[in-house]
């Protein structure tokens, strides 16, 4: 912001003539509006990308009619939604019914406050950043339950209850995986988390303590998927079972808000995963951090790298959505409580130990002597298990053993 202010002062004598408070406010508003605009218009692109990807993966074309290659389809859809009537069915709790989508949207957008888009471009470098993001993103759960309850509809209530059960379950392994990152950094500030990964690709948390952090990444990403209600964890809005889940009764603008929140949450989770494990706004190699290779060392590429990483993860989310079927509720709980949670706890214990243990803390080449052999052993073990599973006589279906 300070840099922007000096730049604006050099650029415009009118700006330099303004009083201090006006200069500060204007310099603060510019990045704030830029971020908000990006966050608010992003979902238009994500919805288009999702529909196109869905089409391509199913050997179709996706939207093709509105604009060249259907580019204006989502814009037309959102305009249509804005002009549609907001219907309040009989028996809804009107105040909660209206408040719910607003709460969901607020919960989805609040993490942008502390999301570090670059070394100097962020809303606020909160010293409890990680904790703040985790706390704020569960606000939308409250919104979902409110929506389900206020709708006076059994399907909506089912969806809300399912989403509550799901998000409460998956937040625990997600936060545990997050704690292993925080333990390595020793700080909750997202800015510190990113800076702790400086120095190129091999310093990203994804590749630290080699076989351990990738598992933490996986646990966090799966929990994140569950938190934005994406397939295979979309039982709160399972359209083949629950009509549309918690937003069954919503139409027009309120429905658009839910849609917006869902896709924004996707971006937030992806960006957060990128910040925590993929180096955030840092380039894979330091030479790519600015446009120095084109002769403009002053132009930083921080936001570009973060957004690129987040978009790559969004692509993975969409890819998963069009690959996997929806889980049953009991399978969902199995994954959360019997697979992710023990794994996450083990990670916290082992990584905590490694952080505290003086030998590894002082630069013992963990990767070479422990990491790679352990990874190989684990992969061999998993391959053997998969081989055994393939050989084992499998009936029509195998019951999950309690």
């Amino acid at each position, binding site marked *: 912001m300070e840099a922007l202010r000096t730049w604006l002062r050099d650029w415009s004598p009118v700006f330099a003539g303004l009083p201090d408070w006006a200069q500060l406010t204007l310099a603060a508003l510019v990045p704030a509006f830029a971020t908000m605009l990006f966050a608010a218009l992003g979902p238009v692109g994500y919805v288009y990308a999702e529909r196109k*990807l869905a*089409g*391509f*993966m*199913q*050997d*179709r*074309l996706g939207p*093709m009619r509105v604009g060249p290659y259907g580019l204006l389809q989502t814009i037309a859809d959102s305009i249509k939604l804005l002009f549609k009537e907001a219907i309040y069915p009989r028996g809804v709790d009107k105040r909660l019914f209206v408040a719910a989508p607003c709460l969901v949207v607020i919960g989805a957008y609040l993490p942008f406050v502390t999301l570090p888009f670059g070394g100097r471009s962020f809303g606020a470098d909160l010293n409890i950043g990680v904790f703040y993001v985790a706390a704020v993103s569960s606000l939308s759960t409250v919104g979902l339950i409110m929506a389900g309850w206020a709708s006076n509809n059994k399907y909506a209530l089912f969806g809300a209850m399912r989403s509550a059960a799901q998000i409460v379950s998956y937040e625990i392994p997600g936060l545990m995986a997050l704690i292993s990152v925080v333990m390595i950094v020793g700080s909750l500030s997202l800015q510190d988390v990113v800076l702790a990964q400086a120095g190129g690709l091999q310093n990203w948390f994804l590749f630290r303590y080699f076989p351990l952090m990738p598992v933490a990444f996986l646990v966090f990403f799966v929990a994140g998927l569950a938190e934005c209600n994406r397939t295979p964890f979309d039982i709160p809005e399972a359209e083949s079972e629950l009509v549309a889940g918690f937003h069954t009764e919503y139409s027009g603008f309120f429905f658009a808000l839910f849609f917006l929140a869902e896709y924004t949450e996707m971006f937030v989770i992806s960006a957060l995963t990128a910040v925590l494990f993929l180096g955030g706004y840092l380039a894979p190699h330091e030479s790519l951090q600015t446009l120095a290779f084109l002769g403009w060392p002053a132009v930083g590429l921080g936001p570009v790298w973060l957004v690129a990483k987040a978009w790559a993860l969004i692509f993975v989310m969409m*890819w*998963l959505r*069009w*690959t*996997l079927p929806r889980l049953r509720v009991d399978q969902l709980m199995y994954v959360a409580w*019997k*697979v992710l949670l023990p794994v996450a706890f083990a990670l916290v214990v082992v990584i905590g130990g490694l952080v505290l243990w003086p030998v590894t803390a002082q630069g013992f080449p963990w990767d070479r002597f422990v990491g790679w052999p352990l990874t190989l052993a684990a992969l061999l*073990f*998993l*391959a053997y*298990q*998969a081989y*055994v*599973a393939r050989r*084992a006589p499998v009936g029509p279906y195998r019951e*999950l*053993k309690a």
Partner: protein
Amino acid sequence: MSSWWRDVSQSLSSLFVGLGITWRHLFRRSVTLQYPAQRWQLPPRSRMRLFMKYEDCIGCGQCARACPVQCITIKTEKRPASLPPIWAANGQGIKLDLKVFDIDMSLCCYCNLCTYPCPTECLYMTPEYEFATTDLSQQLYRFAKPNAQFLTVNPKAGAPAATGGAGGGAPAGA
């Protein structure tokens, strides 16, 4: 415990199998046909809209009798002897004046049974399929024309009798 490992390893390996399949489909050619811009090349003898060549019809009514859904309506009158004789293109003389020949395409079941008995082959199915209307009454096609140009010379008159209907001589014009 071993079943736990089996479940985890199986779900992980099957996850990558599934992702691989969708990844391969991502780059496959789409099967979508952008309909008004692109169209199917219809196979020959597609059974679509019926057409009747009024000038060749002798009014025998065999098509109407063959129709399983009675979508063909024919009304004929005896052609007065005072009028000059006329022929169908295959050389059959037209002895009846065809007053009405209506086909209700909204009833038609596209079985093609009406075209086989037609002695002059004046009734046939065309590959034309884009005739949806907003009004059902527009699906009633009236083929009777008030001032049709019939053949007044027998097109088969000069041809040897042995070739019969097989060759189909050159139309002599009105």
